[in-house]
């Protein structure tokens, strides 16, 4: 009784529980499953939110907000979409609210600096090269609208199919394709202008 089912299964050599299973346990108030879900999603959500909102403080705040909603609404998760889609959808909407609350646009310089701090140190030359690359990438990403930026991040950093991105952003699939098309065009133009 003291262990959630998935912990016992793990001890018996079974595979880690699925996200849906963890969410079902969270709906019953299982705190340990909630912690497992949090630890599983933190790295992905933090990366996505940091690139989306451009500030470490706001990214952490939105991540916590997202997980509070996951705790409260776990009972309403109906498995019509994948668990990751559901969680990223919450994160996206909380990020929009967070940005509106702070009435500001993402700070690219801060994203790049935070990512530098978080990365493992390499040789000084490679570090410098990576730093420059990051700065130019993030300033290019910051030029996109938040919707376009979100599509790029979910496709290229999270490898999500367009149908899932449409569920996350709650928009038609054709809108996702169009946003990605324009975002790519703009990113390429910005990056080539910077290279010259």
């Amino acid at each position: 009784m003291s262990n959630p089912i998935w912990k016992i299964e793990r001890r018996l050599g079974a595979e880690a529980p699925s996200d849906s299973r963890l969410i079902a346990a969270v709906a019953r108030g299982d705190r340990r499953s909630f912690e497992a879900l949090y630890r599983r999603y933190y790295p992905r959500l933090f990366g996505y939110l940091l690139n989306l909102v451009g500030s470490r403080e706001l990214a952490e705040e939105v991540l916590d907000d997202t997980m509070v909603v996951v705790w409260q609404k776990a009972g309403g998760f109906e498995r019509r979409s994948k668990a990751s889609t559901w969680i990223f959808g919450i994160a996206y909407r909380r990020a929009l609210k967070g940005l509106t609350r702070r009435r500001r646009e993402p700070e690219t310089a801060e994203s790049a600096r935070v990512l530098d701090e978080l990365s493992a140190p390499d040789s000084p030359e490679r570090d410098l090269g990576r730093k420059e690359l990051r700065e130019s990438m993030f300033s290019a990403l910051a030029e996109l609208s938040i919707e376009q930026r979100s599509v790029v991040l979910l496709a290229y950093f999270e490898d999500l199919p367009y149908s899932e991105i449409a569920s996350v952003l709650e928009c038609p699939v054709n809108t996702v394709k169009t946003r990605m098309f324009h975002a790519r065009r703009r990113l390429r133009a910005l990056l080539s202008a910077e290279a010259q």
Partner: protein
Amino acid sequence: MKMEILGGDHVRELLPWFLIDALEPAEAKRVAAHLEVCSGCRAEVEAERALRDALRAAATPRIAPHASSFVRLMEQVEAAERRRLGTRALRLGSVVRERVERWLTPRRLRIAALVVAHNVVLVLAVVGIMSSGGRGQPEAVPDAEQAPRFETRSSERPLGAHRLRIVFRDDVAIWEIVDLLREQRLELVSGPSQVGAFEVEAAVDAELAGVVEHLRRDPRVRLVAGWP
């Protein structure tokens, strides 16, 4: 079956997902078939691959959460739960108040005042008759068994078989209580009472003495009653 031929514009839209292998197999096949015959789209694939690689190279390795961050998150979860409960109680309170205000018209108020006054007069009259009738007679002292029983907020009501009454420390979170009850296979019967006591029932096959001993050793439990 004849494969549908995709136009260049459509293929260009799908290229990001073709590159990350996130298209449906049939769609991926159609894109690949188009790329075989279209040099413009093949060049587009290469440009797109370069963009994707540059973005990914700029990305950071994924980091695990700090050890204390989950504790901080749970504090927020509990604060949100408290806010939600508080809002619900406030909403209920305002509904009740609104209904009472709507009911209390001046006419109804006058009737209510008359009823109260009538009852007060009646009670005073009964008390007066009883006290005058009993005057001069020695007052009987009730023995212990006949003495009326009073119940206060802290009086203990008798507990049923396999039932316990538990008081937790003030700083114990709700989820900890739920975990502890689940761990000891205790079913919540009622509570918390006005003094913060929970009444719980143990499983039929549970060894109650062991459960009580476990609870009494738990630092989160302040008091366990119902077992010698």
